[in-house]
């Protein structure tokens, strides 16, 4: 049982080889090459207990591209709304014959438990505020492509860190790949402790000149982040990526965002659509990186 539950504890070599495979698929897709049907005859089930159409579609496209059969489970149209427990849903889905379960859930340990209960490889498609391994891999792939390497890059993650699973996945893996991280945001949206020992700052303008990557996060009002801020306008004033702040960046620095973007809050159009933006490359790398993850999840099994 392998799958991909977390990036915590993975070595540089393990991360790099996943990125290599992702890069290979990225090139093949770009070149229009015939893709190997390595998942032919296999069934991938996506179970998204939290809404995220784009991540789900990206996984489903990745699975189909490698020849897998895709089953898709969404709780609002299923027995979860009739009171079935998470455990029973997982066991039911996997008993139908699933080779890999791709799971999105609002609870931090949902993927770990699904793997333990079902004994099927589970790929974590985002759990709680803790894990979003494929987003981190996608972003690392994007940066590797853009800069030619990752070692020594300085990334500032800006915004609602406390509520961000992307930030925690980045913290779990990007330092292993040689990226130096700084967390930037208002104190109410920063983690309450710093077990990662990374640099933390409340003053974005003091950091901008040192960063190679400005990684912007959305204010997650649905997780209560709004109550930690006086107003959205105040946030935009202090942390919003606008033309003035773009001018403070080093010449080669880039802007990234995992989406969905709130234009006018964490960034304005000049940052989202400007030449520094890697946002569309991030999206384009989603499918090939997830192809690599699915193939590894199953490949190690057989």
């Amino acid at each position, binding site marked *: 049982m392998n799958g991909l539950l977390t990036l915590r504890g993975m070595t540089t070599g393990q991360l790099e080889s996943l990125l290599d495979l992702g890069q290979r698929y990225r090139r093949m897709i770009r070149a229009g090459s015939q893709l190997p049907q390595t998942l032919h005859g296999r069934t991938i089930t996506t179970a998204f207990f939290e809404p995220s159409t784009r991540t789900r579609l990206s996984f489903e496209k990745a699975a189909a591209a490698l020849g897998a059969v895709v089953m898709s489970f969404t709780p609002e149209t299923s027995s979860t709304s009739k009171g079935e427990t998470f455990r029973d849903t997982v066991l039911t889905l996997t008993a139908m014959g699933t080779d890999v379960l791709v799971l999105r*859930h609002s609870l*931090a*340990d949902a993927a770990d438990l699904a793997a333990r209960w079902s004994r099927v490889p589970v790929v974590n498609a985002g759990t*709680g*505020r803790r894990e979003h391994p494929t987003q981190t891999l996608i972003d690392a792939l994007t940066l590797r492509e853009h800069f030619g390497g990752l070692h020594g890059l300085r990334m500032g993650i800006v915004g609602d860190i406390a509520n*961000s*699973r992307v930030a925690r996945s980045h913290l779990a893996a990007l330092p292993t790949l040689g990226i130096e991280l700084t967390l930037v945001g208002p104190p109410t949206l920063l983690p*309450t*402790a710093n077990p990662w020992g990374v640099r933390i700052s409340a003053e974005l303008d003091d950091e901008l000149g040192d960063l190679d990557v400005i990684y912007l996060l959305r204010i997650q009002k649905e997780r209560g982040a709004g109550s930690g801020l006086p107003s959205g306008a105040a946030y935009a004033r202090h942390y919003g990526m606008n033309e003035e702040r773009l001018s403070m960046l080093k010449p080669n620095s880039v802007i990234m965002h995992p989406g969905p973007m709130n234009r006018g809050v964490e960034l304005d159009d000049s940052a989202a659509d400007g030449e520094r933006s890697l946002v569309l490359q991030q999206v384009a790398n989603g499918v090939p990186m997830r192809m690599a993850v699915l193939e590894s999840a199953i490949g190690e099994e057989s």
Partner: protein
Amino acid sequence: MIVIENGRVLRANGVEEATVTVEGDTVTAVGSAPGRNGARVIDARGAWIGPGFVDLHVHFREPGQTWKEDLESGARSAAAGGFTAVLTMPNTDPPVDDGPSARRAIGAARAIGAARVEVAGALTRDRAGVEMADFDSMYDAGVRVFTDDGDSVPDAGLLRRIMTYLAGLPGAVVAEHAEDVRLTEGGQLHEGSMSALHGLVGLPGAGEDVIVARDLALARATGARLHIQHVSTGASVDLIRHARATGVAVTAEVTPHHLALDDTALADLDPNLKMYPPLRAGSDRKAVVSALREGVIDAVATDHAPHASAEKDVPFEQAPRGVIGLETAAAIACAALGADQATFFDRMSLAPARLGGIDRHGVLVEPGSPANLVLFDPGHRWAPKVFASKSVNSPFLGKGLVGKVLATIYEGQISYEGEL
């Protein structure tokens, strides 16, 4: 007749190697045995003999949730842990909050043979935190400790009236679970490095401290006898220390799990490590251990909170709060205190019996003392695998422990017998 040989006996003048003779419900001799014809002779092999342990904080789930525990299984679990008396919390379903419910609970408790089961009553009607509970009729039924355990009394004005009222009933104790729910809403584990790593909402230490500070101020103003339940933070310890030094009638308890563990144990989010108050930072753990040694925290109390296995085999955020503790408490407390028999028995028996007003328990072993005794071997290595409790939600299941109860004697009868 029971004759216990070769034990180290905790007597009024200190520890002495002696033979203890029990006849009926009384210790009849300490020193040489007057006779042993037909007696059950137990070789204590150097183990400690002292008054049976007293636990001021257990949840036996009867009535309402007897699949988790009931009075009978709870009392057997107590006996297996060396306890001869326990105080049940009133958050049963229905709760103990008036005369009829108190009389019913006490009647059911009196029928239990393995341990003395005393009953605490609620501070507010239906534990809802809105109006005073029916104190006089509970008091007349025999209740002395009042608590809304599981919740603090949320309204300081109401708590002040409660304290003023209970200060007028001799021996009545206001026991508080210290948690400001405005600060702990959604919290899953201690707010600190571990909550940051998991991205889970933390329960800040301040959520406990602000209630302790409030309650101490109100106890000072009203003269009520205040007992702070399951103290877990260094800041709360400091508040209690200062209040005691300046004349507030306050006592405190700490759980075995807060003595033994801190939040670094939660790397894998084991639901058997989820409870309130949560496992705190290492510095908090050290502070409660020192406070127990010092006597600023008076007693060890388990907060024995059984939950069925299926209820705990769920995502951490969905798991109910609470762990069992009766059968592992003595080993943990002994390790935390260091090998000093007199202090150990004070915190495990004498002090809690005194605080809870539980007679016949917590009495030093002398001729004429009640035969509520425990044999505890402080050097015995073991790992708990099964429990007398109906539930197994222990943080120490399968873990190596040092110190084990060999036998428990309740009112002259052997209520638990391990490897003798």
